[in-house]
């Protein structure tokens, strides 16, 4: 069955699919029945790592690399002279099965160029997925990319077979979309996205599960007044669609302000990954994601983060992926990337995205229209804290869960542990040593907390003092990224040494 021909197709169709970043297989647990092949595990499984350090867990290929569109950033655009080929549904199904059976992959990630029309292509993809699911009884993970402009009926059919669907947003503003992807429009992207959302909500509702991944703005307990007003989309961030404002959210699904953050007021679980019994059918159980290209257009980080926030809040997206632009076509009208893609910017955006999703930050707290770029020197949470010193220090023994979450060096797990430890103290008190055991990263947190009224740093704290020390931390920029700007180590002395010393000497407890 496998011939030279398949080898060649696989080569071409993989090479042209590789720029799509999403490669997670997580978010759904599906048990196998007694027949067929495959199951899914919500934590996801990595099967290999490619030489660029990214996890390989899915067979990520294009169905075809033929395309009638001409997106400037894409290697498959019709104006490029590249070798074109397509899989047949049978070939694709067999390839997936034989890889899966050898435990090379967790499932399939199918994307495609556009042949003839979006509907025509999606119909072929549907046939391939149907063959895989029904004839080959494949129960592994399937992620299908939806072409902008795909008809509602096709989405309905596909959604019952796929675990995840995604429509690529590509660019954050309508203007850059028009100039770089002339055949796509805001509404051709957002219409299928909305359609998937509504159909999925209907399914979740039927099963009594919660819709949203994130607290809505008005339910977000924030520590500062000024952060509460921030939740509206400026007109130009997402123009040309009426969808983003008219959708009414049902508040009964939201979480009340309790520490677990996992139980809604109606007692339903929130964030809970869908678990499917053998043979059960759910609509896109692992949710919807999308991708934004970073650095192909002039769009700012501010616009990007505002769009992501809107996508999370109004379209219930599970993930937004960011992909640093690589000028594969050497197109002189697009930014030059011969010095490598801007991975540091991408990294900071992922950190900001993390704050949106897990820390209940509003976009406007992370970044503002006046300073529309993320600080590359510092991670966004430290940056936030430094610019809001008036809100700190926070008292560990009394601060609310959500307040704790705002402290650099305190993550979701350690904030939860602090709250639960406080309620089990029976009169005794937490010490800095306990905080360390709980997992608080003291070298970041020291500037922003007091514990039983005591601070670890008895100096008068100024913004520049903290900045100097935070910049000196080794893990400030991940080891695999390098900085263009070399910055002077401003630090007069290393505070983390002092912290360590004092802990050991038992001076601060």
């Amino acid at each position, binding site marked *: 069955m496998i011939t030279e021909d398949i080898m060649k197709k696989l080569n071409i169709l*993989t090479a042209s699919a590789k720029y799509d970043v999403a490669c997670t297989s997580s978010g759904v647990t599906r048990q196998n029945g007694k027949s067929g092949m495959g199951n899914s595990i919500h934590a996801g499984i990595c099967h290999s790592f*490619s030489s*660029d350090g990214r996890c390989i867990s899915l067979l990520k290929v294009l169905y075809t690399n033929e395309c009638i569109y001409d997106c400037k950033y894409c290697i498959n655009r019709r104006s490029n002279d590249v070798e074109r080929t397509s899989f047949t549904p049978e070939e694709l199904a067999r390839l997936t099965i034989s890889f899966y059976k*050898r435990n*090379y992959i967790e499932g399939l990630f199918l994307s495609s160029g556009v042949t003839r029309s979006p509907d025509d292509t999606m119909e072929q993809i549907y046939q391939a997925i149907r063959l895989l699911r029904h004839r080959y009884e494949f129960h592994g993970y399937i992620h299908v990319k939806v072409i902008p402009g795909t008809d509602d009926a096709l989405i309905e059919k596909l959604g019952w077979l796929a675990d995840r669907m995604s429509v690529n947003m590509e660019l954050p503003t309508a203007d850059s979309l028009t100039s770089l992807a002339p055949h796509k429009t805001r509404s051709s992207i957002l219409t299928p996205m909305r359609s998937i959302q509504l159909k999925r909500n209907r399914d979740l509702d039927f099963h009594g599960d919660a819709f949203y991944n994130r607290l809505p703005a008005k339910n977000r307990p924030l520590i500062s007044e000024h952060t509460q007003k921030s939740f509206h989309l400026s007109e130009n961030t997402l123009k040309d669609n009426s969808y983003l404002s008219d959708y009414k959210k049902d508040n009964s699904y939201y979480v009340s302000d309790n520490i677990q953050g996992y139980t809604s007021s109606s007692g339903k679980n929130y964030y809970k990954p869908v678990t499917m019994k053998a043979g059960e059918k759910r609509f896109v159980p692992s949710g919807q994601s999308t991708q934004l290209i970073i650095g192909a257009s002039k769009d700012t980080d501010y616009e990007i983060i505002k769009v992501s926030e809107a996508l999370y809040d109004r379209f219930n997206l599970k993930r937004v992926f960011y992909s640093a632009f690589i000028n594969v076509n050497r197109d002189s009208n697009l930014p030059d990337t011969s010095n490598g893609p801007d991975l540091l910017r991408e990294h900071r955006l992922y950190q900001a995205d993390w704050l949106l999703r897990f820390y209940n930050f509003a976009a406007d707290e992370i970044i503002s229209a006046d300073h529309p770029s993320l600080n590359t020197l510092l991670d966004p949470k430290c940056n936030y804290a430094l610019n809001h010193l008036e809100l700190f220090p926070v008292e560990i023994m009394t601060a609310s869960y959500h307040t704790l979450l705002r402290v650099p060096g305190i993550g979701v797990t350690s904030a939860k542990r602090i709250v639960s*430890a406080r309620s089990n103290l029976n009169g005794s008190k937490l010490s800095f040593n306990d905080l360390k055991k709980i997992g608080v990263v003291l070298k970041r947190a020291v500037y922003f907390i007091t514990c039983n009224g005591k601070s670890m740093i008895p100096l008068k704290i100024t913004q520049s003092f903290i900045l100097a020390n935070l910049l000196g931390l080794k893990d400030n920029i991940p080891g695999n990224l390098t900085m263009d700007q070399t910055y002077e180590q401003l630090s007069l002395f290393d505070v983390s040494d002092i912290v360590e010393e004092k802990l050991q000497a038992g001076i601060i407890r």
Partner: protein
Amino acid sequence: MKTDISPQICPIDYPTDKPRHVYVCENSPEGILSGVYDAWVSRYGHSHNYIQIADNLECNIFYEYINVETDYDKAVNISTAVKHKISYNFYELLYTCLQSSDPDRADDIYRLIILGFAIGDSARSCLAYPPIQRIMKLQKNVWNETHHYMGFLRFEELSNGYMFARFRPQNDICSTLILHFADRFPEENILIADVGRRKIALSKHGKTGLVSNPDIDFEHFDYLISYSEKMFRDLWKTFTDSIAIKERSNIKLQQQLMPLRFREFM
């Protein structure tokens, strides 16, 4: 955090009023549980007992050493008592720790079981007690390795249609892995071979089992691997080569995420 554990049942410093009894057991789950059984019924006092695995044993002239005969019935006795009298979760924790390859695990497991029978299931959360801290580390280590191999294990088809995988794990995890793969491939016949321990876990028509035989000749399997396998390996290589983005190349990160010890059979 709970700290109020009676020092009688769970010593941290061993008392010296009478010589310590060291139970020396075989390096296997059954061996350790037999040791726990013997120490328990000795009535010498938990705080004066210690359990150690026979491999690289260093003797101390002040201690008395007692050899433990591995006895399957004793081991089952302990494990069923744990399952029924403490809790199923506790039993799972015990099971996971027994899979560990840590040379000092035996005594920690003994302490875990003593504490479990003394205060019940909540023994699992006594994180202030050093043996439980170590137990939690063992558990995490075993889980991590199991999770890694769920992804990194590679199957090859044998000429008789069986799917065959080899690996050399640090912990004794092939019995957990076979359950995962038996659910994943209910229609396949699967063999997972732990080359280091000379053990094979198998699944056939949804039934799983374990064979342990020091004489298994793993080289022999090379001749049984079907001809088409090379082609699939090549196909996979084609895929992994063309999926990498050369502009983002980062070999160091790749090695960090997928350490070489996992790649022996990949």
